[in-house]
């Protein structure tokens, strides 16, 4: 334990440092901004792959593939059809909610489209590759992103 004299000296030292080397006035606000920015960036959730199946229905140039992603209560179905090297994705979002859907490859947006109030959207003429789909519902700052999936 510190003696009373020591405590008093430390008290004087604290006052001295506070006076001679004060914290910059904007520091607290800068920290709050940094934390706020991070909070926004984290308001997303990853939609996990639930199933990946080929269906037999509507086969023309190969059976369409259906991917299901979800994290309760959101489900996202993607139907991928391939024809002569190009690919088409039809998406359904449940529960339905309008917004914006965008496709990313390696962190870059390569296509974007509106999601209808019924939760439907589509992308056509896609090149093969690995994609992630980002869903931004209207009226929300958060977003959802799928794990990467291959289109080929």
């Amino acid at each position: 334990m510190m003696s009373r004299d020591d405590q008093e000296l430390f008290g004087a030292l604290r006052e001295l440092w506070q006076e001679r080397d004060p914290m910059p006035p904007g520091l607290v606000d800068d920290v709050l901004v940094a934390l706020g920015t991070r909070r926004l960036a984290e308001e997303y959730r990853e939609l996990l792959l639930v199933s990946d199946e080929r269906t037999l229905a509507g086969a023309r140039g190969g059976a369409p593939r259906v991917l299901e992603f979800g994290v309760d209560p959101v489900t996202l179905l993607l139907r991928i059809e391939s024809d002569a090297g190009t690919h088409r994705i039809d998406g359904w979002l449940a529960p339905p909610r309008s917004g914006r859907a965008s496709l990313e490859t390696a962190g870059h947006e390569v296509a974007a489209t509106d999601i209808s109030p019924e939760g439907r959207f589509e992308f056509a003429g896609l090149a093969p590759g690995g994609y992630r789909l980002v869903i931004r519902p209207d009226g929300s700052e958060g977003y959802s992103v799928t794990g990467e999936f291959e289109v080929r």
Partner: protein
Amino acid sequence: MSDGETVRDSGPPDRGEAAPLWARAAELFDAWRGGRADAMDGLVRLVTPALWHVVRAYGLGRDEAEDVIQTTWLALVRTGEGVHDARTVLAWLSTTARRESWRVVKATGRQSPTDDEALERLGDSVESAESAAERNVEGDRLWRAVESLSERCRRLLRVIAFSDRPDYVQLSTELQMPIGSIGPTRGRCLDKLRELLTTGEAR
């Protein structure tokens, strides 16, 4: 925004009156983990002033010190659940800030920050004639004595002054002294400071 509360809270860990800093920090941290997002703002306002002095004790420039403090807060938010006992959140912040400061000091290859510091102090000491006149003589005397201390003593005293219960294991690494000698070293540094104060008086 800034209010009277901020000003009152910007003090060092006060011993005695009201709840100690660590207890107020624990309360806010618990509230934040319980879902009150604004409690984190309160925690930042409460603890950042003390962190500033702890980090500056390592001789970091003002910009570097600001970066270290931001990194420290981001680390807390990231590992929020990693601090098991809310009562240790102040110690966690202080230790993390010191580790990060130490890392920066080592990464920039500074053996002794005294040269940079001396220059910077000159830059920092620009103040209005009015406030200079108001500064009390006692303060000047103490400041001169502190300036005459060794870098190691100055760092140790400043870290202790602004930490509730500094972690001696980490301190011993940073100051390159055995844990057991930190207490006695603190005593010697205080003695040296008192001696400098007395001789300064005699001059």
